[in-house]
């Protein structure tokens, strides 16, 4: 009997000791559920092969990514060691101490030179121009466009377009051309529609869509250093930009008032729309014949320019940060050192991840790897983003409340909408003493 007890105890002891040692060599990365997270899992499997450290990429659907991450942060939970968080979170997560300060790491590895400048500015630094870094740019992303090459290249369509608009049917270079093309291809009788844009108002989809127009029209959302918004968000440029976005909505397929990346990709795969706005991260599905029957006929272009020739796009994408409450911070730091290595970044791009590594981005190999990489490369050097202040979610809610009824419901004018939004934002910044 005694032997049995000793044996059992020894067994339990062994199991426990194995358990703890295994724990020390495990890292958990939290991200949203989408293809890039699968590519990241493939990448970190190679880290495991190299070092023996098991890295797991845990995911959750986009709709509750923000809520789940911040619930864990607020509870000071150690479930995640690293997190690939949205660029808007930087303010909230850094001011509340949820992220480990990576400034030293950043400077030591000269990451502001290694990574593309826009990605450093929007994925890593907070506050703007402070020289303080909280994340390593991981997945670069921005909004681009896909289009139906076969419809654009059809000689009959070309002739009809030339007759109607007086210039050649081609990939749009300006928002004006984008609008004309959307109108031209909008044929509800044939179950063909002009354009697919973002309209979902539950998080940042609609705002991102409108930003694409605003930034290319030369407008801004406000001054990110002084928090001034009056006369900036409701400038004449922005009013014109919002008007054109609303006009584009007229040429969308039916039921387009709650659409985001899934619906916009469907617009192409189902042959519904001539052009579709989406994040570059979702384009791999469009060149894959298994997921898009029109894969061979799908082309891509960067967000077009505004009337004054300005050309920008709304930023997506994320940086990777270490969670302050992680018990494996040292191990996480080692992982980041591996992650920023040139060869690893190159491998990351090969697997399908959108690297922010400047040298990899600039290489001809990357730019020719897919039909959309060139557009991505061009876009990543002219992106702008939403506010990253801790109260960004309130700013988003206010923007949705004002923009949505105007764009989809035909209520009020663009000027009234943006004036009201300027007042909302001003009040919010005053409330937080910005």
């Amino acid at each position, binding site marked *: 009997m005694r032997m049995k007890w000793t044996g059992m105890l020894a067994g339990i002891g062994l199991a426990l000791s194995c358990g703890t040692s295994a724990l020390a060599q495990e890292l958990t990365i939290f991200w949203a559920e989408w293809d890039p997270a699968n590519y990241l899992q493939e990448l970190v499997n190679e880290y495991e092969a190299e070092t023996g450290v098991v890295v797991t990429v845990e995911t959750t659907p986009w709709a509750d990514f*923000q*809520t789940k991450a*911040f*619930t864990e*942060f*607020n509870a000071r939970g150690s479930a995640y060691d690293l997190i690939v968080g949205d660029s808007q979170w930087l303010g*909230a997560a850094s*001011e*509340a*101490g949820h992220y480990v300060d990576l400034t030293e790491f950043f400077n030591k590895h000269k990451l502001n030179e290694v990574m593309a400048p826009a990605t450093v500015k929007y994925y890593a630094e907070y506050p703007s121009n402070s020289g303080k870094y909280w994340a390593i740019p991981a997945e670069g992303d921005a909004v681009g466009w896909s289009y139906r090459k076969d419809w654009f290249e059809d000689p009959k369509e070309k002739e009809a377009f030339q007759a109607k608009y007086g210039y050649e049917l081609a990939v749009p270079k300006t928002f004006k051309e984008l609008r004309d093309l959307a109108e031209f291809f909008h044929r509800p009788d044939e179950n063909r529609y002009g354009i697919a844009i973002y309209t*979902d*108002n*539950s*998080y940042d989809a609609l705002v991102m869509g409108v930003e694409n127009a605003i930034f290319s029209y030369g407008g801004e959302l406000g001054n990110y250093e002084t928090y001034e918004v009056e006369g900036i968000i409701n400038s004449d440029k922005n009013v014109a930009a919002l008007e054109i976005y609303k006009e584009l909505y007229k040429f969308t397929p*039916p*039921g*387009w*008032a*709650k659409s985001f990346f899934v619906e916009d990709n469907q617009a192409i795969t189902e042959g519904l729309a001539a052009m579709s706005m989406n994040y570059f991260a979702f384009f791999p599905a469009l060149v894959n014949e298994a997921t898009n029957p029109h894969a061979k006929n799908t082309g891509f272009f960067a967000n077009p320019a505004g009337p004054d020739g300005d050309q920008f796009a709304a930023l997506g994408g994320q940086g990777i940060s270490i969670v302050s409450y992680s018990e494996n911070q040292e191990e996480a730091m080692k992982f980041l050192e591996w992650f920023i290595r040139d060869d690893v970044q190159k491998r990351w791009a090969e697997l399908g991840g959108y690297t922010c590594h400047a040298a990899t981005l600039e290489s001809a190999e990357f730019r020719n790897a897919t039909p959309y990489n060139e557009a991505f490369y061009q876009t990543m050097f002219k992106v702008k983003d939403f506010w990253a202040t*801790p*109260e960004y*979610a*309130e700013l988003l*809610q206010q923007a949705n*409340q004002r923009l*949505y*009824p105007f764009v*989809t*419901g035909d209520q009020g004018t663009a000027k009234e909408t943006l004036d009201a939004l300027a007042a909302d934002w001003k009040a919010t910044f005053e409330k937080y003493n910005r």
Partner: protein
Amino acid sequence: MTTAVMATLDPKSRAAARGMSDLAIRNLFIIPTIAFLIIFNVFPLIYSLGYSFTDFRASMNAPARFVGLANYRELLNDPFIWSNFVITAKYVIISVVGQVLVGFGVAMLLNRTIPFKGLITTLLLLPMMLSMAVVGLFWKLLYSPNFGIINHALGLGTFEWLSDPDMALYAVAIVDIWMWSPFVMLLSLAGLSAVPKHLYEAAAIDRAGPLYTFFRITLPLVAPILMIAIIFRTMEAFKTFDLAFVLSSQPTTEVISIRLYKMAFQQWQTGMSCALAYIMLIMVLAITNIYVKYLNKVKER
């Protein structure tokens, strides 16, 4: 006094052998429940009342600052919050009225001898037993303008149930009616079967018409139990979240609890959302009170 009312312990039982008194056993059963209620219900309730007077944000480390009634003032002055309340009221009225009509109607149909009555009643109760989120997801498919079976069956072409801002709230209410009418039906059925048969016989002898019988006998006698069903459904409809959240993100379907969720867990305005939760609580209490008063009146008759 209390101990006198309680049955005495059987002297041969194990508890008695252990020397536990009646009082000890009572405490053993009650204290965990009370403790649970205090820890998970009463304490958070009072704690959040405190937070509702501060600018606390759970996502930040800054300490909570007392702001008095500022949160309440700001919320009650916000036209968007008021529109959320109006939407909620509209939703409650549509869905509760719909449930009572459908539920009571089906109960009337079932309140007679028909073959397989038990089986039919059980099958009709199925919607109620499903998860809200699942119901929301599959109704979203049923409503789809491109391949949904509803448009196909009704020959509506590409009618947009959920993305048409004017229709969306009705579409959500229809799902709620589908799901919860069985609940009203079940309670009504219990009420209907309790109506004494001799009343109907007396009415028949007096040559009362079916309408007269319904309004003078059936309805008044079923009313108390129907009121209970209405109270439950109103409270639930007022707090509704899952269905509207899963089905649609239209501003016209943003009921107050969705707004509360966004405020609390997307924007992390903890203090402000506590204040909104309290405003909701007071409203639900007030509405319920009116009903209960009415229910007591009905019972007295």
